């Protein structure tokens, strides 16, 4: 006999909780729907009895949804989580997915498209209850694309790798378009395949999408796999020089496309030379970058302010960004007129592409 699944809905709006309860009770699996109007109450309920799914708002007094999700992820790793928020901001979507939520849905979309939302919930309640693997992190991107194509599905695969976002358009099991790092079509597809890690999300199909890729998917995957093998094992010195030259050209084009003035990649002391493009005073700036990152990280530890995200600075001639990335630090210089509210995102993209 199938057991009744339990859903916990957390929101500080009592009317919204009533509405959700009414909607979720209509789900085909007839779940047991419980509600909580505060994070503390929700956590107490999760401690006291097993739930299958937590549906959580983001903006709440005292403890917000992101804090709740962080706690839930640690304490109840098996619990499925859905964010149902009114905050129409891509940033919160990314933060929620980074915390490992299964689904992010806007309240306005839920009201407009309640059927699709309830289908998603039903799917989260239903599948893989008897083991199997969760998520697709253990699969390579090639595997995922092949699975999508074999199932003859139509969808848009959104792939996120740090600040980089790419999309693949699939129509009836065929790859029709790709977009990544400012490129489109086959070039974009090859760039995406070079990404070694990331997160994936299936979006609804876009049937009207213009077709830019005509080659069969198997041919494309084979070509890309061969190219990756060749890059990984350069057989002669000439090939190595060519690859290095191509890499420099590609980095310069990246710099120009994003509108940055210079980039300096600074490894930790004693682990190689800084790599710079677009500046004559790379050595001095590399010393400053390395030391700045070190003292600021130490300061962060002393005052218990958490890990360093980045350092920004400016004068009349330039805007600067220092970003830690792996064991390196990157200094990116921007012209004074560059839109300061986009510099962080652009710098992150540049750094992620630089090191890919």
């Amino acid at each position, binding site marked *: 006999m199938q057991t009744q699944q339990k859903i916990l809905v957390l929101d500080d709006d009592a009317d919204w909780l009533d509405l959700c309860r009414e909607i979720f009770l209509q789900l085909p699996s007839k779940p047991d729907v419980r509600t909580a109007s505060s994070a503390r109450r929700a956590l107490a309920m999760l401690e006291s009895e097993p739930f299958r799914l937590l549906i959580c708002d*983001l*903006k709440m007094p005292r403890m*917000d949804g*992101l*804090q709740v999700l962080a706690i839930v992820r640690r304490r109840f790793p098996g619990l499925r989580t859905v964010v149902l928020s009114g905050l129409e901001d891509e*940033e*919160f979507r990314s*933060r929620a997915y980074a915390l490992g939520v299964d689904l992010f849905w806007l309240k306005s979309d839920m009201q407009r498209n309640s059927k699709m939302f309830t289908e998603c919930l039903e799917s989260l309640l239903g599948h893989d209850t008897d083991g199997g693997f969760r998520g697709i992190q253990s699969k390579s991107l090639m595997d995922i694309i092949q699975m999508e194509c074999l199932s003859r599905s139509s969808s848009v695969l959104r792939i996120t790798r740090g600040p980089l976002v790419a999309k693949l358009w699939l129509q009836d099991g065929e790859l029709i378009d790709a977009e990544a790092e400012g490129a489109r079509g086959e070039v974009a597809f090859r760039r995406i395949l070079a990404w070694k890690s990331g997160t994936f999300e299936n979006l609804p199909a876009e049937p009207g999408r213009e077709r830019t890729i005509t080659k069969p998917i198997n041919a494309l995957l084979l070509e890309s796999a061969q190219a990756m093998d060749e890059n990984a094992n350069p057989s002669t010195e000439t090939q190595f020089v060519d690859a290095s030259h191509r890499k420099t050209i590609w980095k310069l084009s990246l710099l120009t496309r994003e509108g940055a003035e210079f980039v300096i990649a600074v490894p930790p002391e004693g682990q190689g030379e800084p790599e710079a493009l677009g500046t004559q*005073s790379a050595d*001095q*700036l590399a*010393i*400053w970058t390395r*030391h*700045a990152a070190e*003292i*600021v990280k130490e*300061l*962060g530890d*002393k*005052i*218990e*302010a*958490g*890990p*360093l*995200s*980045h*350092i*920004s*600075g*400016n*004068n*009349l001639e*330039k805007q*600067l960004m220092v970003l830690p990335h792996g064991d390196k630090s990157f200094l990116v210089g921007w012209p004074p007129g560059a839109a*300061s*509210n*986009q*510099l*962080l995102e652009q710098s992150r993209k540049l750094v992620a592409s630089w090191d890919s």
Partner: protein
Amino acid sequence: MGFLKKLSRLFRSRAGVQQLPAGSVTVDRDGHVVTSTVSSAYPKALLGEIGRDVLVLFREARAAQMPLAEVTIHFTSLRITARELRGGAIIFLFPQTALSPMPT
């Protein structure tokens, strides 16, 4: 009651979570705190550390031929914005919460 009071005092004194500073601080060219609106409960020594590190950033940037007028350090839970003032600096400290807008 007396016993409970003693117990609560004991636990309070052992609480190890450091409060994040909020407010502004002015430091002179030697890193000494001149004025501050940060709560007096926050350790002065740590405010001094912040001031000195910020001055080092400005000084070394100048030495690298890249003098800076303003520096912002973004930690996960604290943003420190510093403006240079004739060798010293004025420093603004903003604790960050999970729903604070993303820094730029």
